[in-house]
């Protein structure tokens, strides 16, 4: 006798006391026997279906990698930032950019360089990291050039940059004697041993 396809799995065949596979299989719900979907190594196809029905505006925000809209070719983080507005191109690489960022936002960067040039002009020789030393050369030279000119306008410009006014006045007093003949290159950088705490490459920068 064939097994009755019901939820019960009791053997209806009175002749045998053993379970038969066919009776078990037929009595179980059909969904269990289907193959389970494979783990999320591939994008689930189910998610992409709502997107044609609900077009959301994502024009100016970077594409969030957590929200997978199923866009093809989304490989790396930088690809989400290709925005063209009024001619300013933003590239993924650093080609040709010469301003050292020093791992700081612009206001902090300016303050750091102002502080470093103030201290160098005050002490004559300081020890700092190589990146900061080579970034501050330009600004130290600029201050010494202002002092070489010596006019009131240049003095006020220097006062707006250097944090301590005695240093500006001392600079304007001694620079004509000290750097009168030298054209540029008022600093010297000497590389030295790395810092113990974080192995940062260090350098002395001094006024020549």
């Amino acid at each position, binding site marked *: 006798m064939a097994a009755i396809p019901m939820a019960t799995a009791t053997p209806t065949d009175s002749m045998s006391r053993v379970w038969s596979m066919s009776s078990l299989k037929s009595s179980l719900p059909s969904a269990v026997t289907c193959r389970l979907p494979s783990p999320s190594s591939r994008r689930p196809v189910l998610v992409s279906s709502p997107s044609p029905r609900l077009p959301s505006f994502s024009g100016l925000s970077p594409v969030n990698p957590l929200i997978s809209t199923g866009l093809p070719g989304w490989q790396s983080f930088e690809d989400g930032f290709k925005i063209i507005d009024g001619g300013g191109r933003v590239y993924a690489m650093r080609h040709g950019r010469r301003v050292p960022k020093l791992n700081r936002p612009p206001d902090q960067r300016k303050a750091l360089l102002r502080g470093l040039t103030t201290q160098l002009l005050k*002490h004559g020789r300081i020890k700092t990291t190589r990146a900061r030393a080579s970034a501050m050369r330009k600004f130290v030279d600029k201050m010494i050039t202002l002092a070489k000119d010596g006019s009131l306008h240049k003095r006020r410009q220097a006062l707006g940059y250097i944090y301590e006014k005695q240093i500006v006045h001392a600079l304007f007093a001694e620079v004509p004697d000290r750097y009168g003949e030298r054209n540029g290159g008022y600093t010297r950088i000497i590389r030295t041993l790395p810092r113990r705490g974080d192995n940062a490459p260090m350098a*002395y920068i001094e006024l020549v």
Partner: protein
Amino acid sequence: MSVNNRDPLVVGGVIGDVLERFTRSIDLRVTYGQREVTNGLDIRPSQIINKPRVEIGGEDLRNFYTLVMVDPDVPSPSNPHLREYLHWLVTDIPATTGTNFGNEIVSYESPRPTSGIHRLVLVLFRQLGRQTVYEPGWRPQFNTREFAALYNLGLPVAAVYFNCQRDNGCGGRRT
């Protein structure tokens, strides 16, 4: 070996500020405690309170040498108007020995830099004979070149320098 442009003495500005170019001919080993001084080494004032152990090379015990220790960055590297300050002067050092065998005519004064990073230079000159070098009248405003010319010491035979800055920060007020 002669001093080329990449030599630490040239890079550090010692040749130019303190000395002329010279040819190194004698070994000079300066040791503060356990640390041997190499060019451009950073040492704290607390480590150089006592005089170092200096050993010089050479072969003939009849040659005598003079050791001078100066600081060209007094009072501050940005404004060195007291250049240079004489810290130590030992004469009549026989070759292959050390400063213990010499005549210390200016006693060792431990450097205490107040502002900035100071270079401290140790220079070795060869004397023509014994007891030909005398002490200067005072320590600041010392000029190594004039001193060498005055006592016919000629060019140096060895030199080493190291850096020293004050132990604790900028010394109180920032301005």
